[in-house]
Each structure stands twice: as structure tokens, then as C-alpha cells.
């Protein structure tokens, strides 16, 4: 039985000792008490109450009564994710500033317990200000994706199994003639130098025609440069059949390089065709050669690899070219929570751009398809526009709506192009399109379809099946919703959104220039960096879209992807696993590596390790911060001052580890660096370009490290292998991953869907063997709940 320390007695003591000395008195008292087990174990409440009193008297002046900070004294809010124990140690070591000895031991623990409970912890913050699902407009990315899908409502999306490469037909003679076709095959890439030879057997080298067609898959959203190098006449269509992209119908002089840049939207496959002609002529023919290359955003120019080419027919695709202002990212994920004149102007420009493509491409096709139907052109145009607007609004239009959004504009405007422009300007600037959550007046099934599309691929529902099911009211049960989400999760668009999520989770898009000291790392060039990025992408895709989709494999996988260029640079551990892989030096084609004991998935990937290093040395601090903040999802305050790293030249005898220890030794640094360095040092076996090493400055590498978890668990590890095993099973890492995924896919805080949403999802994740795809489905199903169920949990779940 516990004997409580009566409140009155505490107050009495405090009043006796008065103010700060009370700390000392209490420590003394509790010290005695601990010896005599019978005495004084406070309840948590009592401890907090005591902590509150100390906080009020000794801390609030600087930190504010609710930890909100005080102007020009200490402005930062007291919040974070340290455990009570960590906070107590911190307080004991550093607070009050200048005389930390005044609050130590049990006093520090009381203050820690109080602030942790009252306002510091995440739970406290959720309790104090329960987050809610806030209204948001479409983000820039959602606007792009929605317009692409609005276009796809008429043209469809790629389906079936898509083969890599590009389909090719070779003709004898300089034009398409069926009986002169000498070869039909899939070329892995377009990179040919035929010289003055025949490209395939039976074709006259003096006059031939090659027709390539297929699709180009964009992995990331951004500006791409498409580059064709050709010594002969060629015409390239891109995005749609007959949407001419590069016209070199006339081969003229020495002009052989053709470049054009275009903004592409991720998760889309763009059809293309190249007609390549060696024309018969009276003069000597030039040698024939052609390459199809690109420069993806932030990467080097190279031949478009087979994995980004599709050898099958794909439908026409629309990618918005309008420049959109960036969205708010203050919470680490994009949210459409603010409007500005620039943003408003960009929605006008986007609507007009879409109107142009609707008039130029969608309407003529629709009219042609409907030519045998009765009715005037205007009647058909009305039906066409109803279909566009209903898709944009994610709901059927009532008769009134048709009048408002369509009929009266058609009546006012005799010119077809202007009429379409007018209707689309009204519809695509309407809040019904721009605010997808304003769907309360729709049926539950329509809401579900709308929200799943928004969560899973930042867009709107657009295929016949789904719209049919939604209109028929088939998404009423949780299993129906789950079934639909599971069906959608393998979509190209979800893959693209997942990759964006993983980039955000790993903070990769914030990597700057990866250039390294040319003396130390002479062959580490941009082409290699591009290959490494491709390798990382392929690795992430492989893990996520494999059968088990196991999060833990991101840290444990022994094999990754390499190219000949990577293998040449990194040596044995990066050799391709299969012999038949083409080993042309400098090739960028990706092949799986052999399993190697030095590989631990992401954690030893050179792209990450080079990005988290200086140009001439490793950076345990960058690597540690990366682990704490992103992989383990813990909060860190920025350093009080900006520090330049100590130069290795000034300390030639120190290893990197020793140098970092030296620089971060002051107590004020150690508050955070104790945690940062402990994780960063574990990577010291991998140098500034991520190559394995056992010596640093001619001394054996010391890769021992430590970590204290959110639940105060102390972990020790030696090197990345032990660290990887810990991280893969770590609650902190899994929780961080789930939280990031939720924020990225839903663009709302998890707690807005219930205070324990994150814990529940993390538990489900664990129960499902950390299956990432399953997690995405779980998140989507949760976010598809209609508002009334969320705000009134007393209502039964959708499964009824």
C-alpha cells in the first residue's frame, strides 16, 4: 500500500521553504523517503501539481504561463516529443538558465511531468486544440491531376500490362506501305546509329522509314526537356496522336539537335510517335542516326530509358502547362489553405488552357463519335459540356444546375470555341470544382468515390465503372469502400503519389547539389548522381510494389539496383546479379545487384549518404538529423546559432567522429547533439559518396551509437547493420512513417479524424506485417468517411 504525500503537506513545505529553495528541500525529503520505502510516492496528478507550482514561480516568466513563450525573452513555444525522463534531464542540466542547480532531481521531474501533460506533448496539444478536418481548396498538384483526369474522362487511362520499350516498324522505302514492312519489333530505347547501312534486313539503306510509337512515363511532376538528335528527317507527336511536338520534316544543313521543354504531370503516360525518314535523293545520303533523350527535372540529360517507355498503345493525355504558385508547406505537406490573387489568376489561366484543349481535341472527337445520333451540333455540345462539368463537380447536375452552368452560356454565345471557353471558365473556377470537400449535398457513395480519388491520387473519379457504382450507391459498406480502394491502389497515379510521399518522408527533394571534391572523388560526376537517383527510385518502387510491400525491407534489403556506371564506381558490392545484363561501360540501364552484406536498404544507399555529407567529408550531423527527424519522426529544435563545421584541415589528426564530438561538446549543444550524433556516427563506415570504408584518417572507424526512444527505451548499436535492425522494428520509425503517409495522402492531421487515429493506424500497420500498400488503403478508407460519421462517432460506422 502506498502512502501518499498529502497535498497539504506539500503546500506546507513549500510555504515554509518558499520559492526556489523548495526544490532542494524536496529533493532532500524525497531522497530520505526513497530510503524508507514506506514513504511518499506521489500520484501522477500530485507530481504534476507540484510541477505546475514550480513552473509558475520559476519558469513562466520566460516561457509563458502555457509554454507559449514570451516576447524578446524566449519566444519559442515549448513543445516537442521528448519523454518525461528526457525533459527532466534537460531541465535538471540547463534550467533555470544560468543556475541549473536550482532545479534538479525530483523537482525537474515534477516540472517535466507537468509541462509534458499540460502543453508540451503531442497528446497535450491535441487535447488543448483538437485538430479538425479543415476546408481546403485543390492544391496545385491536385488541380493538375484533376484536369488530367477530366481530359481522361473522354480518352481513358492506360490499362492492361504495359511492356517497357517502344514498338517499332521498319519499312523499305521512305513511307508507310504495308507490304514493304520488313520488321516489327520492340526496341528497348531509341538510340541508333545506322550509318549508311540498312537498319534491318531487306531495307534499302538509301530510302527507309521507321515508325516508332508508344508512351513515355513521367515519374515526377515538373519541367522536362525532350531532346531528339537526328541526322534525318523526323516528326514527333507527343501527348496525343497528331499533337505535333517537334517538326523536322525537312532535314536541312547540319541541324541535328531538336529540344523542346514541357511541363509533365507525374503518374501519367504520354503517347508519342516518331516518324523517321531517310529520304531518297539524288545527292549522297548522310549517315542515319537518331536518339530520343530527355532531361527530367533536376536530372542529367540521357537517353530515355526502357523503364520510362511503354511499347503499347496509350490514350492521349493532358498535362497542364499553366504555372501555378507553390502551396503552403508549413506543416511539411502541401495544403490548399490560403488563397491569393496570384493563385486566383492561375486558376483562370488553367481553366482557359483546359478550354482550349477541350475545344481543340475533346469536342471534335465527341462530335465525330456522335455523328450518327440525332440532334443538332449545339445539342451535342450541350451533352458534351454536361459530361465535362459533371466530372469536374464529381456529381450529376440537376436541371437547375444545367441551366446555370451550361444552357445560358450556350444561349448567349454563338461561337463554339467561345461558348466552350465560357462554360469551362465558370465550371473550373467554381467552388464546386475547386473545393472537393464541399460535397455534403451528394450521396454517400459519391462522397466516397470523390474522397478516395482525392486521397489516393489527388484527383477526381473519372472512369465509367466507378462513376456507375457511385451513382448506383454501391459504396455504403466499409468492405465495399475497402474493395474499391484496394482495386485503385495499384494505379499508376497512386504509384506517383506514393513516390512523392517517400521523397517527402526522406526529405530527398531538399537535397542540394551532390557535387563532391574532384580531387578526392574524381569520377563522382552528374551522370553517376543521376544513375544513383534512378537506383534509389527503382529500389523504392521494388519494395513498395512487391508482393509483401514490407516497410522493414526498406532498411533490411540486401540487394538494390545498379547500373554499369554505378558498378564501375562502387565496385564489388554493386555488381549486377545477372550475367546477361548488358555491361556497356557508362550505361544507365538499371539491373538488380547481387546481395551484399554491406547493403542495408535505404540506409546505405549512396544517393542518400552522399546527399547527407559534405563535399569532402561525411557529416554525422546531417545523417543523424535525417534519422531523428525523418526516419524516427522526432522533433528537433534548430540550433541556437549557425555554426560552420570545423575544417578537417585544421584537425588533420582527428577522425570525423572526433571532430564532431569536439565541436558539439558544449552542454548547450549536447541537448540535441547527444541524440543526433548518436545516430549519425553509426554511418561512419560509409564515406562522403556512400562507399564502404573501415578506416577514417587512417584510424579504424568507430561506428558505435545510441538512441533513446519516445518511450525512453535506450538502444545501443554498432554500425548500420545494428541500427537498421533496430529501425526496421522500431515503434518510433513505424509511427513516423504512418504519420507522414497520412499527412501526404489526406493533407490533414491524423488527429482530425480522432485523437487516436495515428495509434490505431500504426497498430494496424504492425498487424499487417508493415504492408505499405495496405497502409495506403487503410488511410484512404478512413479519410473516405463522410463528415457526419467523423464528427459524431456515436453514429455507427459505414460498415452497417
Amino acid at each position, binding site marked *: 500500500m502506498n502512502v501518499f504525500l498529502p497535498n497539504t503537506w506539500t503546500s506546507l513545505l513549500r510555504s515554509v521553504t518558499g520559492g526556489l529553495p523548495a526544490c532542494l528541500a524536496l529533493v532532500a525529503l524525497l531522497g530520505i523517503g526513497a530510503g524508507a520505502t514506506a514513504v511518499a510516492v506521489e500520484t501522477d496528478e500530485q507530481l504534476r501539481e507540484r510541477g505546475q507550482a514550480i513552473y509558475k514561480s520559476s519558469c513562466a516568466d520566460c516561457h509563458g504561463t502555457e509554454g507559449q513563450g514570451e516576447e524578446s525573452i524566449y519566444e519559442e513555444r515549448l513543445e516537442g516529443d521528448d519523454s518525461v525522463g528526457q525533459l527532466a534531464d534537460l531541465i535538471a542540466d540547463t534550467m533555470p538558465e544560468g543556475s541549473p542547480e536550482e532545479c534538479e532531481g525530483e523537482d525537474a521531474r515534477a516540472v517535466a511531468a507537468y509541462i509534458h501533460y499540460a502543453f508540451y506533448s503531442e497528446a497535450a496539444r491535441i487535447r488543448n486544440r483538437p485538430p479538425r478536418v479543415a476546408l481546403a481548396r485543390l492544391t496545385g498538384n491536385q488541380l493538375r491531376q484533376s484536369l488530367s483526369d477530366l481530359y481522361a474522362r473522354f480518352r481513358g487511362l492506360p490499362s492492361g500490362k504495359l511492356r517497357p520499350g517502344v514498338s517499332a516498324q521498319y519499312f523499305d522505302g521512305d513511307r508507310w506501305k504495308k507490304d514493304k514492312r520488313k520488321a516489327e519489333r520492340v526496341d528497348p530505347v531509341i538510340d541508333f546509329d545506322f550509318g549508311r547501312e540498312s537498319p534491318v534486313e531487306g531495307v534499302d539503306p538509301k530510302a527507309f522509314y521507321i515508325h516508332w510509337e508508344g508512351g513515355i512515363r513521367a515519374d515526377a511532376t515538373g519541367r522536362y526537356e525532350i531532346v531528339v538528335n537526328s541526322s534525318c*528527317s523526323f516528326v514527333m507527336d507527343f501527348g496525343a496522336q497528331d499533337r505535333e511536338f517537334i517538326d523536322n520534316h525537312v532535314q536541312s*544543313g547540319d541541324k541535328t539537335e531538336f529540344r523542346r521543354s514541357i511541363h509533365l504531370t507525374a503518374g501519367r503516360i504520354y503517347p508519342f510517335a516518331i516518324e523517321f525518314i531517310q529520304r531518297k*535523293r*539524288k545527292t549522297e545520303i548522310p549517315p542515319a542516326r537518331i536518339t530520343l533523350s530527355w532531361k527530367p527535372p533536376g536530372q542529367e540529360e540521357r537517353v530515355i530509358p526502357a523503364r520510362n517507355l511503354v511499347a503499347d498503345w496509350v490514350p492521349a493525355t493532358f498535362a497542364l502547362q499553366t504555372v501555378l504558385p507553390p502551396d503552403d508547406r508549413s506543416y511539411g505537406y502541401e495544403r490548399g489553405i490560403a488563397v491569393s490573387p496570384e493563385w486566383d489568376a492561375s486558376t483562370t489561366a488553367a481553366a482557359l488552357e483546359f478550354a482550349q484543349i477541350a475545344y481543340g481535341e475533346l469536342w471534335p472527337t465527341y462530335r465525330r463519335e456522335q455523328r450518327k445520333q440525332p440532334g443538332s451540333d449545339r445539342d451535342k455540345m450541350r451533352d458534351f459540356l454536361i459530361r465535362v462539368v459533371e466530372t469536374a463537380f464529381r456529381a450529376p447536375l440537376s436541371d437547375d444546375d444545367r441551366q446555370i452552368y451550361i444552357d445560358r452560356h450556350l444561349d448567349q454565345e*454563338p461561337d463554339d470555341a467561345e461558348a466552350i*471557353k465560357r462554360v469551362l471558365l465558370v465550371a473550373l473556377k467554381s467552388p464546386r470544382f475547386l473545393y472537393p470537400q*464541399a*460535397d455534403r449535398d451528394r450521396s454517400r457513395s459519391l462522397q466516397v468515390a470523390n474522397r478516395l480519388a482525392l486521397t489516393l491520387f489527388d484527383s477526381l473519379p473519372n472512369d465509367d465503372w466507378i462513376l456507375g457504382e457511385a451513382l448506383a450507391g454501391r459504396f455504403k459498406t466499409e468492405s465495399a469502400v475497402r474493395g474499391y480502394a484496394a482495386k485503385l491502389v495499384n494505379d499508376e497515379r497512386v504509384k506517383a503519389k506514393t513516390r512523392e510521399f517517400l521523397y517527402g518522408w526522406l526529405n530527398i527533394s531538399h537535397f542540394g547539389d551532390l557535387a563532391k571534391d574532384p580531387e578526392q572523388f574524381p569520377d563522382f560526376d552528374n551522370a553517376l548522381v543521376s544513375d544513383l537517383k534512378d537506383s534509389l527510385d527503382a529500389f523504392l518502387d521494388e519494395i513498395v510494389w512487391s508482393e509483401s510491400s514490407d516497410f522493414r525491407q526498406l532498411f533490411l534489403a540486401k540487394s538494390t539496383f545498379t547500373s554499369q556506371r554505378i558498378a564501375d564506381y562502387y565496385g564489388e558490392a554493386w555488381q549486377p546479379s545477372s550475367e546477361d545484363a548488358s555491361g556497356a561501360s557508362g550505361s544507365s540501364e538499371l539491373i538488380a545487384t547481387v546481395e551484399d552484406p554491406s547493403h542495408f536498404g535505404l540506409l546505405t544507399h549512396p544517393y542518400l549518404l552522399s546527399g547527407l555529407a559534405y563535399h569532402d567529408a561525411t557529416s554525422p550531423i546531417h545523417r543523424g538529423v535525417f534519422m531523428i527527424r525523418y526516419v524516427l519522426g522526432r522533433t528537433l529544435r534548430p540550433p541556437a546559432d549557425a555554426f560552420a563545421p570545423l575544417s578537417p584541415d585544421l584537425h588533420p589528426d582527428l577522425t570525423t567522429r572526433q571532430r564532431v564530438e569536439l565541436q558539439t561538446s558544449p552542454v548547450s549543444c549536447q541537448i540535441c547533439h547527444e541524440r543526433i550524433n548518436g545516430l549519425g556516427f553509426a554511418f561512419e563506415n560509409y564515406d562522403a559518396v556512400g562507399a564502404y570504408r573501415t578506416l577514417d584518417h587512417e584510424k579504424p572507424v568507430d561506428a558505435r551509437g545510441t538512441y533513446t526512444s519516445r518511450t525512453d527505451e535506450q538502444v545501443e548499436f554498432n554500425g548500420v547493420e545494428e541500427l537498421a535492425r533496430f529501425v526496421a522494428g522500431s515503434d518510433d520509425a513505424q509511427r513516423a512513417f504512418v504519420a507522414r503517409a497520412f499527412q501526404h495522402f489526406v493533407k490533414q492531421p491524423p488527429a482530425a479524424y480522432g485523437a487516436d487515429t495515428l495509434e490505431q493506424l500504426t497498430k494496424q500497420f504492425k498487424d499487417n506485417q508493415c504492408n505499405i500498400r495496405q497502409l495506403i488503403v487503410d488511410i484512404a478508407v478512413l479519410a473516405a468517411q463522410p463528415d457526419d460519421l467523423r464528427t459524431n462517432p456515436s453514429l455507427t460506422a459505414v460498415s452497417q
Partner: protein
Amino acid sequence: MMTNQTNRRRFLKDLGISAAAANLMLNLPSLGHAGSPAGKQRLVFIFSPNGVIPKHFWPEQTGSDFELKRILKPLEDVRSQVLTLHGMCNQIKGDGDGHMRGIGCLLTGIELFPGDIQGGSDTPAGWSQGISVDQYLKERLQANEATQTRFGSLEMGVMVPDRADTWTRMSYAGPNQPVAPIDNPYQMFDKLYGQTQNRALLASVLDDLTADFKKVERLIGQDDRQLLQAHVQLVRDLEQDLHLEMKQRSESKAGHRVPSLPPNVEEENDNIPLITRMQMDMLVNSFVGDFARVATFQITNSVGQPRMRWLGIDEGHHELSHEPDSNAEAYEKLIRINTWYCEQVAYLAKRLAAIPEPGGEGSMLDNTTLVWTNELGKGNSHTRNNIPFVLVGGGLGFKTGQALDFREVPHNRLLMSMCAAMGHPANSFGNPDFCGDGELTGLS
């Protein structure tokens, strides 16, 4: 006042028009042409294909006492502004057939690159090796603040085939850089007025949008209305800006209003007269707005095949142009076809003659020279000697109301004269081998 200023500047920026053009549009004091003492000078090249029937084209007399023959008759009303230049020869040799060199070297004065376009009986060729005179002048006019305009030059076309090859391009921004003419009037309208038009359209739908917001607001929880209200406020601000903008535009007395085009005109052979009219009207409008000082106006292309059914002629022009002179029926049809082209030149000339020069002296035609030209001298011989050069208007300051005959001179020299007359003399234009004798004399 500050707010108004800022708003005006902002919407001008949004409109994407130069300060000079905007001032004119909004009837504000113009800054654009204050610096050019000689006034504005404009130059327009009008192209029609397949040569002419010289006997019914060229005046028989030279000097000011000349008679306009059948084909040139439509220019009678502006006779005093006409200058015919006989004896201009496109002597450029090298790769490419006669039609290719005819159009590709016409304004460039230089050879074509070797290439893979095999026409007729000559060696294959690619694009021109040099810049064309219109683009050369545009570059120089744009480089000078006093002659800078919103577009510098406009490249218009009528039914130019939808393929880029040596026969369809007359204007070059540099070696291997053909400039595609815009032959769709709606596309041209978009280029000239798209943004202005879209602003007007936007203004006209804002009421609908505001009503829409009111309805949607009911679907939003109280806590979330703030975002929606901020959005509505943006719409209201925009409405005010646009209201002011539209008001100023409608009060503008500069005579430069956004033209209105007949709706849904398809690009089809039979619409050539209508499209030509639409394009010419827009060209006149653009000059009133000082959007450009140089233009090309390309009716079809070299080897063009319009079928002038509106004249009762069913055969294509190029096909007819190969007929021997002895084919009286074809001969007569070719005269009528070329007369129709001349009527278009005359229409443009008369429209310009009817409009006083904005902010300047005389009529707009007094400050514009139309140059009607062709890839060939005569269709059935494919000669590039005596290619048509009929000038109308006073833009270049040449002495008009006369017929001149230079016997046989390389047309490069005329290109040099045009550069000099526009204030940017060149030591040579195109291939220097044809420029040794310098600019033509006796033009002014």
C-alpha cells in the same frame, strides 16, 4: 488614387500589352512614337504563288505616265501610291527546285542548305541559310526603344498547308529557323487579343461565380467559411478591377477596339476570301494599335493550290499555272486568279488609306508600304527573273505613282534598299555576291 494606379498597372501587366499600345488603347498620352521624327514606317510583304501572266501584269510604259493592266486594275483608286518594279531577278542558285528557291530565297537573298527535300528535277534542299528581310528589320526595330512595338512583326497566312517545308515558309528568323505563319484567324486573334478577350469574358462570368459561392457556402461548416470568404473577396476585388478596366476600354477613343470575327469559320478552301478578309482586318487593327511595324501576309504557299470556286474556277492554281500560254482558257483563268490576289492587296491598301495615321500625319497608307510579291516571274516557265514587286503606299518613302524597269538586277539590291529606307542600311543582304552594286538607285 494610388490604388487606381496600382490596379491599372497590374491589369496592364495581366493583359500583357506594352505601355505604348495600352496608352493608345486607353487613349492616354502616347509615349511610343514621340522619339521618331520621321514618323512611323511600316512594311508588309504580301505573297501570292505560281507567278503571273506578265503581259497583263506589268505596265508597258515606265515613269509616272503608266497604265495599270488588267491584273493591276484593282489598284486604280490608289494609283498615286503604286510603284511597280520590273527587272528584279532572284538569281540565287544552289540546292532546291525553282519553287523552293523562289520562296526560300525571296526575302532572304541567300542559298538554301543542302537537305532531304527533293523537289522537281534539282538537288534536294533544306531551309534557307539566312535571315529574311522582314525578320532582320523586326530585330532592329525592336532593339530601338523608339520603334519598339508589342510584337515587332506579325506573320499572317491564308490557308497555308499544315506542313512545315521549304515551300510553305517565306520568313526566317535566322539560318535554319523558318517562321511559321499563323493562318487560322482565331489563333491570330488569340495572339493579338486573347488576353484582352479573356479579361472581358472573365468579367462577364464573375456574377455567376459569386452566386455559385453563396450556394456552396451552405455546404461548408461555420469554421471553414473564412477560407471561402477570402476567396469571395478575391472575386469581388477582381470584379472591381475588371469593371474599371472595361470602362476605360469602352471609353477609349483611339479607334482601336477589339475586332469581332464571324463565328465558326473553318479553314477550308472555299473560305479563302473570308479568311483573307478576317486576317487583313486584324492586320489593320494591329497597326492602329501599333502592335507591329513589319508583317508578312502569305496567301497559301509556293506551289499553292487554291481552287477559286468563288470565281467559277475549279482547277487548282498551281496546276493551271503549268499550262502553256496557248491554252487560252487556262490563260484567262490565271489572269482572273491574279486579279483576285490584286483585289486583296487593293482592299488592304484602301483600308489603310481610309484611316488617319494615329498620332501622326496623313493616312496610315502614307506610312505603310505593301510589297506584293511572288516566288516566280511566270508560272509555266518557272523563271525567277522579273518576279513581281508591286509596292503600294508611302512607308519606305520611295517615289510612288510610277512604273520602273531595272532591266535585270539581283533582287538582293532591292532588299538592301528596303533596309536603308527603314533606317537600317546594310552593306549587303543575303549572299554578298549579289550585292556588289549596292542599293538600287532612282527609287526616291
